[in-house]
């Protein structure tokens, strides 16, 4: 009885902490993205609000909160406002099994990986609802793209993750981390480089980040599924996007990059450093590449990633059986 | 090579222009019925359409089609005079597809009808505007002979007098630039 109570308290505290973490990291990431974009483009980025513009994301957030929430004519108001919530809240649950440190996990679940992948599916629903309910043609096209893209990219993502699961024999992220060593050559990326690349590409596709940002492709669909959203409606999508990025990078760190382990003292700092390095790479990609076309996006998935991921999985299974 | 094209048409007047003075090579007057055939012949010659416009003059609207050639530059101005009362012309947009927009523009500005243009709706002006802004008022119109730079007329239909200043008699040889001052 007592055990369940402590577990519940742990989860509630953990979720609150996660919400705070996501909010905080959202702000940090907004700042990092804008500052990074500025530096890639040889300009300072935000600079006016606070020293070097550090308060800019807070000003942005206040602006978004203060804006009128506007529902378009003939839109379905319930679905329309359900969508941003649906896109944001499941992401919080995805943080639950993430192993930030040796003990710093909200809830160590044996099927942690499965939990994350399952909740990741909610995002598609949210984007579909947003595009459909806003009674906007761009939104509809964006939603169509989002569904096709997310559904397609989930498969190679899953296969790449499964290769690690085969190798380690576990779906528990903490276990996967503990099986890896402290030094970079002891990480899973060495044994599964192909899975790592496939995972990274699929993760970009899954989170709708450039060069795979087709559902919101600015130059074609103005803003895609969130064309009609204003204020915090848009803010929620925004936050969810960043939270999703943190999750995929967190999973990637745990699976391939040794999680909280690193040279010297292990701990959550290593985890954060690796996650932020991956996030930095994602920002770097966004500010370098053009956007690919929709049919190419699916071609890459079905003709390259999927066969490669399958081969990788079969190869892993074969080697695991042999050795 | 353009002469052979003009030979196949029943032109009203074919004139060779001084390129240095006007930027045109040929100036050709046609009846409205010949314009589609002329466009077809020019299309066969691999010419392209530069633009279509009109000039509002005393005698009517002078619709000007300017063609050019990409390999052998040769700017030809085909001119068709349509009366103010019934400004109507056949469209050449099925020969030169780009003409559709030029005709729509001319329709916007002058109110000239191009029959069988596939989509003769306003292009540049608002759809509910019923004014044709470039039409001139009766008093402001000049006569054609006062506007066009005189050029060397190779042949002209008998009775073709658009280029002759009204005060003068029918004889039209190659006029010098100085002679234009005698215009009405």
């Amino acid at each position, binding site marked *: 009885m007592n055990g369940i109570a402590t577990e519940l308290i742990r989860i509630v505290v953990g979720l609150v902490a996660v919400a705070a973490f996501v909010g905080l990291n959202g702000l940090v990431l907004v700042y990092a993205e804008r500052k990074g974009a500025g530096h890639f483009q040889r300009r300072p980025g935000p600079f006016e609000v606070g020293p070097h513009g550090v308060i800019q994301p807070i000003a942005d957030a206040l602006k978004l909160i203060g804006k009128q929430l506007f529902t378009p004519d003939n839109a379905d108001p319930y679905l329309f406002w359900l969508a941003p919530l649906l896109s944001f809240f499941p992401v919080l649950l995805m943080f639950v099994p993430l192993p930030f440190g040796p003990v710093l996990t909200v809830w160590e679940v044996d099927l942690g990986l499965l939990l994350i992948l399952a909740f990741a599916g909610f995002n598609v629903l949210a984007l579909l609802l947003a595009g459909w309910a806003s009674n906007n043609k761009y939104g509809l096209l964006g939603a169509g793209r989002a569904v096709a893209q997310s559904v397609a990219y989930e498969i190679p993502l899953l296969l790449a993750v499964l290769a690690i699961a085969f190798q380690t024999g576990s779906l528990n992220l903490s276990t996967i981390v503990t099986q890896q060593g402290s030094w970079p050559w002891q990480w899973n990326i060495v044994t599964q480089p192909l899975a790592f690349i496939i995972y990274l590409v699929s993760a970009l596709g899954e989170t709708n980040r450039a060069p795979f940002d087709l559902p919101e492709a600015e130059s074609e669909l103005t803003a895609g599924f969130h064309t009609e959203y204003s204020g915090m409606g848009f803010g929620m999508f925004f936050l969810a996007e960043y939270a999703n990025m943190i999750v995929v990078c967190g999973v990637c760190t745990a699976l391939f990059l040794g999680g909280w382990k690193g040279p010297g003292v292990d701990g959550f700092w290593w985890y954060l450093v690796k996650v932020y390095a991956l996030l930095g790479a994602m920002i770097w990609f966004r500010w370098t590449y053009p956007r690919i076309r929709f049919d190419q996006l699916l071609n890459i998935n079905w003709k390259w990633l999927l066969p490669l991921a399958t081969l990788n999985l079969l190869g892993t299974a074969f080697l695991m059986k042999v050795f | 090579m353009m002469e052979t094209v003009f030979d196949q048409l029943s032109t009203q007047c074919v004139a060779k222009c001084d390129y240095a003075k006007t930027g045109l090579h040929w100036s050709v007057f046609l009846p409205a019925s010949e314009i589609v055939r002329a466009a077809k012949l020019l299309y066969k010659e691999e010419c392209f359409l530069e633009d279509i416009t009109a000039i509002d003059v005393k005698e009517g609207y002078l619709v000007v089609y300017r063609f050019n050639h990409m390999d052998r530059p040769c700017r030809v101005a085909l001119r068709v005079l349509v009366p103010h009362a019934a400004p109507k012309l056949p469209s050449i947009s099925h020969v030169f*597809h780009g003409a559709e927009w030029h005709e729509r523009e001319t329709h916007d500005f002058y109110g000239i009808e191009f029959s069988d243009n596939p989509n003769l709706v306003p292009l540049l002006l608002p759809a509910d505007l019923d004014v044709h802004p470039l039409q001139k008022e009766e008093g402001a119109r000049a006569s054609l002979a006062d506007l066009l730079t005189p050029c060397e007329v190779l042949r002209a239909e008998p009775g073709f007098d658009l280029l002759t200043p009204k005060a003068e008699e029918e004889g039209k040889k190659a006029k010098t630039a100085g002679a234009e001052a005698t215009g009405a």
Partner: protein
Amino acid sequence: MRNEKLDLVTGDFYTQNFQKGARENTLILNLGPQHPSTHGVLRVLLELDGEYVLRAEPVLGYLHRMHEKMAEVKTLVQYMPNMGRVDYGHPLAWNWAFAGAAERLGGIEVPERAEFIRVISTELNRITSHLLWWGAYILDLGAFTPIMYAFDDRERLLDMLQILTGSRLTYSSFRIGGVCADINDKFIELCKDFIPYMRSRLPMYKALVTDNIILRKRVEEIGVFDQDMIRRYGATGPVARGSGIDYDVRRAEPYSVYDRFDWQVPVYQKGDAMARYLVRLDEIEQSMRIVEQALAQLPEGKIIVDKAPKYTWKAPKGEACFPVEGGRGLIAVHVISDGGKTPYKIKLRAPGFSNLSLFAEASRGTLLADSVAILGSLDLIIPEIDR
């Protein structure tokens, strides 16, 4: 007249007109007039089947200012500033076309030094035009950073052009009979710095963008125009040269002193968006070659004729046309004068107008993303199209 609320449901006049030809179960999409990739206020009506474009119809006129009507109330000299506003990409070409037509009409011989200054400033302006297009086109294709690099280079050019014209975007520095400001030492110094610098930047552009596999897959074999199509629509400039037509007004109807320089007309045969892209990038290099040679050969002398036309100048009777190669193709200004204070008629032949008219045909059957790529590859400057 029109019921605003009704428009929301049924669409405006153009949507209704477009809808008449629509098939069943298709989506009519209004791309624009406010849309990130229509470069201002172009509106394109699209009939979509999924993401495939079945039919497209550009709707113009959102930036129409009736320049041709304005010409009826201004004298020729007073009309000059309008030419800076027709095309913000390459205004000096319009300046030139208009000044040239007026000079032709008035029989004015421009001093040689002025001709050289015109060549130099117009060519530099052409580079700014192509850089602007380059950045904006890559932006259309989803990459945000190259436009900043392009603007960095463009700023240097604007500093140079500011010496010659005094302004940075809407130049109206040509005068009937010459130009308004002379080249100074500072300009020559900046120019001599700029050309080697730009030559070192072009390989970076190539490595960052042109060779990028994502970009190549987006623009190669997209929007292929054959030569017949170019002729039918009267497309000129890089659009025609990308389809293997060697037509450049500077070569075809040599004006000014262009025949004294050694330069090439870049021509690509494939006719796709990539070919048009490469033509423009190559033209940057060719323009720099012309500027280099013009600076080396720059003669001494006046920059404007004595007794240059004042604002009260009445052009003699007659008709004159002056074709110029602008950043987008054949620009021609026709001036018709009855000898009065104001011109009788001015006709502006805008290359973008003809270039855009082929979009409806070119976009048929393409994906939405490709049609945006085709639209961008035409290098649209809306004020020039709408005039």
